[in-house]
C-alpha cells in the first residue's frame, strides 16, 4: 500500500508539472508580460523593456517557467500586480471560506443523497422513485447559477426565509461559521447539484446490492428491514460513493466559482472571477493549478480510500 501511494504520488508530481507547463504556456501566450498593467497604457516602449528586464520577463519562456516552478516549490505563486499582494497571501485569506462552503455542501449532499438513493432503490419503480429520478435528472441538466436564482426567488424573495446574498459583514471564515443563516442558500444550492449526481449512483449501487445473496440471507434470518438496510446494505452500497466523492472534489471548486459569484461570497472562486475581469494572470494561473492539484489528489485519495474500505480491492 505504502509503495503504491509513493508511486502514485510520483506520477502525480509528473502530471502536475505537465499541467503547470500547459497552463503556463497558455497564460504566457495570452499575456507575455504584466508591464502594461503596472506602468499604465500611456507608457513608452523603452520603459516596458526596462521593466521586463528588471522583473525577469525578458528571459526565455523556458527559464521563466522553471523559475516559476522553483517559486511554487517554496510556496511563492507570484505577485498580483492588480491587487498589490502576493498570490499566496490572497489564497491564504480566501481558502478557508471556500473550503467551509465546499465542505458544508459536501456533507449536506451526502446526508441527503445516501438515504435518498437507498430509499429509491428499495421502492424502485414507485411514483416516488420516478419523481426523485425526474427531479435529479432536471437538476443535473441545470446550470448551477439558474438553480441558485430559482432558490433566491422562492426561499429569499417570495418567502423571506434566507437572505438573498451573503452580506458584507462576512469577512472571515469565523464570521461565516458564526452566521450560518448567511450561507444557507449557497450551501443548499451547491448541495442540491451534488445530490443530483450522487443519488443516481447511490440508487444503482443499492439496487445491485439488494439483489445479492447476503441481503436475502439477512432477511431470511428475520432481521428487521431497518437493520438489513443500515447494517448490511449501507456499508456495501456506499463503496462507489467514496470514489464519486473523490472525483467530485475538483467540481466542488469549479462549482464554487459560480455560486460564489452569484451570492457574492468572498472565496477563491470570486477571487478568480475578479481576476478574469481585470485580467490578473498570476491569480488565474494559481487557481487553475489548484483545481488540477485537487483533481489529481482527489483521484488518488479515492483509490486509496476504496482500497482501505473494501478489502477485496487490491492496489498494485
Amino acid at each position, binding site marked *: 500500500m505504502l509503495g503504491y501511494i509513493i508511486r502514485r504520488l510520483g506520477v502525480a508530481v509528473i502530471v502536475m508539472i505537465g499541467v503547470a507547463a*500547459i497552463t503556463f504556456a497558455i497564460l504566457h501566450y495570452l499575456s507575455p508580460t504584466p508591464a502594461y498593467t503596472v506602468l499604465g497604457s500611456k507608457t513608452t516602449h523603452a520603459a516596458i523593456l526596462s521593466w521586463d528586464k528588471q522583473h525577469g520577463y525578458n528571459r526565455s519562456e523556458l527559464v521563466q517557467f522553471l523559475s516559476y516552478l522553483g517559486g511554487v516549490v517554496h510556496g511563492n505563486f507570484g505577485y498580483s500586480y492588480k491587487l498589490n499582494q502576493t498570490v499566496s497571501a490572497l489564497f491564504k485569506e480566501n481558502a478557508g471560506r471556500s473550503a467551509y462552503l465546499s465542505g458544508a455542501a459536501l456533507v449536506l449532499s451526502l446526508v441527503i443523497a445516501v438515504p435518498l438513493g437507498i430509499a429509491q432503490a428499495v421502492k424502485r419503480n414507485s411514483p416516488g422513485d420516478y419523481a426523485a429520478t425526474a427531479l435529479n435528472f432536471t437538476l443535473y441538466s441545470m446550470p448551477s*447559477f439558474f438553480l441558485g436564482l430559482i432558490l433566491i426567488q422562492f426561499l429569499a424573495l417570495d418567502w423571506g426565509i434566507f437572505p438573498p446574498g451573503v452580506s458584507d459583514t462576512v469577512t472571515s471564515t469565523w464570521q461565516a461559521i458564526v452566521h450560518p443563516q448567511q450561507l444557507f442558500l449557497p450551501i443548499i444550492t451547491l448541495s442540491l447539484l451534488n445530490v443530483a449526481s450522487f443519488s443516481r449512483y447511490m440508487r444503482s449501487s443499492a439496487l445491485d446490492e439488494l439483489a445479492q445473496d447476503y441481503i436475502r440471507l439477512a432477511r431470511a434470518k428475520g432481521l428487521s428491514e431497518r437493520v438489513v438496510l443500515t447494517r448490511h446494505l449501507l456499508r456495501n452500497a456506499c463503496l462507489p460513493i467514496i470514489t464519486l466523492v473523490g472525483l467530485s472534489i475538483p467540481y466542488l471548486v469549479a462549482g464554487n466559482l459560480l455560486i460564489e459569484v452569484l451570492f457574492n461570497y468572498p472565496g477563491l472562486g470570486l477571487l478568480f472571477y475578479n481576476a478574469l475581469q481585470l485580467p490578473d494572470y498570476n491569480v488565474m494561473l494559481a487557481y487553475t493549478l489548484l483545481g*488540477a492539484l485537487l483533481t489529481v489528489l482527489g483521484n488518488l485519495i479515492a483509490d486509496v480510500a476504496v482500497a482501505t474500505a473494501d478489502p477485496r480491492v487490491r492496489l498494485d
Partner: protein
Amino acid sequence: MTEPLSPSQQMEELGRAALVLPGPGGGLHELMPEGGQVQVVSSGWRLAVREFASNRLAVFALVLLIAIIGFCFLGPVFYQSNQTYSNPLVSYLAPGGSHLLGTDENGFDEFGRLMLGGQSALEIGAFASLVAIVIGTLYGAISGLIGGFVDGLMMRLVDILLSIPFLLIVLVLATKYNGTVLDLSLVLGVFSWLVPARLVRGEVLTLRTRDFVQAAQTMGSSRMRLIFRHLIPNAMSVTIVNVTFLIADSILALALLGYLGFGLQFPHTSWGDMLGNAQNYVQNGQWWLVYPVGGILVVVVLCCNLIGDALRDAVDVRLRRR
C-alpha cells in the same frame, strides 16, 4: 422477453425460425429465398433504431428538441421583431400586447430574442462538439492503432489535460477569445475532445485484433485507409452516443460563460448572455427575462441527456447482437 412483440419483431422471429424446417424426408431442410427475393436481415443499426424508438421518453425528447430547433431557426420568419437597434423607450415592458414575452433592458423583444439566443447557443453547442469529436476520434484512432510507446505518450497527454478543470481553462481562454460564434466554439471544442479520444482508443484497441482489420492489414491497407475505412466507422456507435452528451455539456458551459460575461458580443446573444443580469431581474420582479430563457435552456440540455442515455442503451443492444 416479457413484452409482446411488435408485428415487425414477430416477422423477424418467424423468419429466423422458417430458415430451418424439418424436410419431407427427415432431416433438416433449409428454406431458401426464392429468386429475386432478398431475406430480411436485421442489421445492427436497425436493431439500435428500433430499440431507441421503443423508448417513449427518448422519442418525446427527440421530438421536443426538433421542435425547439425549429422554433429558434424558423420562428423569426413568423414572428418578426427588432433585434438590432436598442430602444430605451420600450425597455422592461411586461409581457402582453405586441410583445409576447415583454422586452429587456435594451427594448429588444424577449420572445424574438429567445429565438436569436437559441440559434447561437445551438450552433455553438453543435459546432463545439463537432470540433471535439473530430479531434477526439482521430487522436484516439491513431493512438490505438499505433500502440506501444507512442500510444502511451499520447494517452499521458490526455491524462494531463484531463486534470485541468474544464471550466477554468475555458474561462481563461475566453478572456481573450470571446464574442463570436467561431471563437466560443473553438474554445469549448479544443478542451472537450479528451473523453471521446479515450473512448475511441478503447474501441480501436479491441477492433484492431478483429479478423477484418487483420485481413485489411494483410492485404496492404495503408494506416490512413485502415483508420478511415475500417476503424472509425466501426467505432462510430461510441462516438454518436458521446456527441449528444458533448452537445449538452457545451450548451451548459456556454451558458456559464455567458452568465459570467464571456459570451457573445452585443447585439448578438446566446441564452447564457441573456441571463447575465438575471440576478437583478429576479430582484426587480422581471420574471419574463429569467424563467423562459432558463427553462428552454434546461429543456434542451435535458433532452440531449435523455437522448444520449437512450442511444447508449440502444447501441448496447446492437453490440450484444454483434
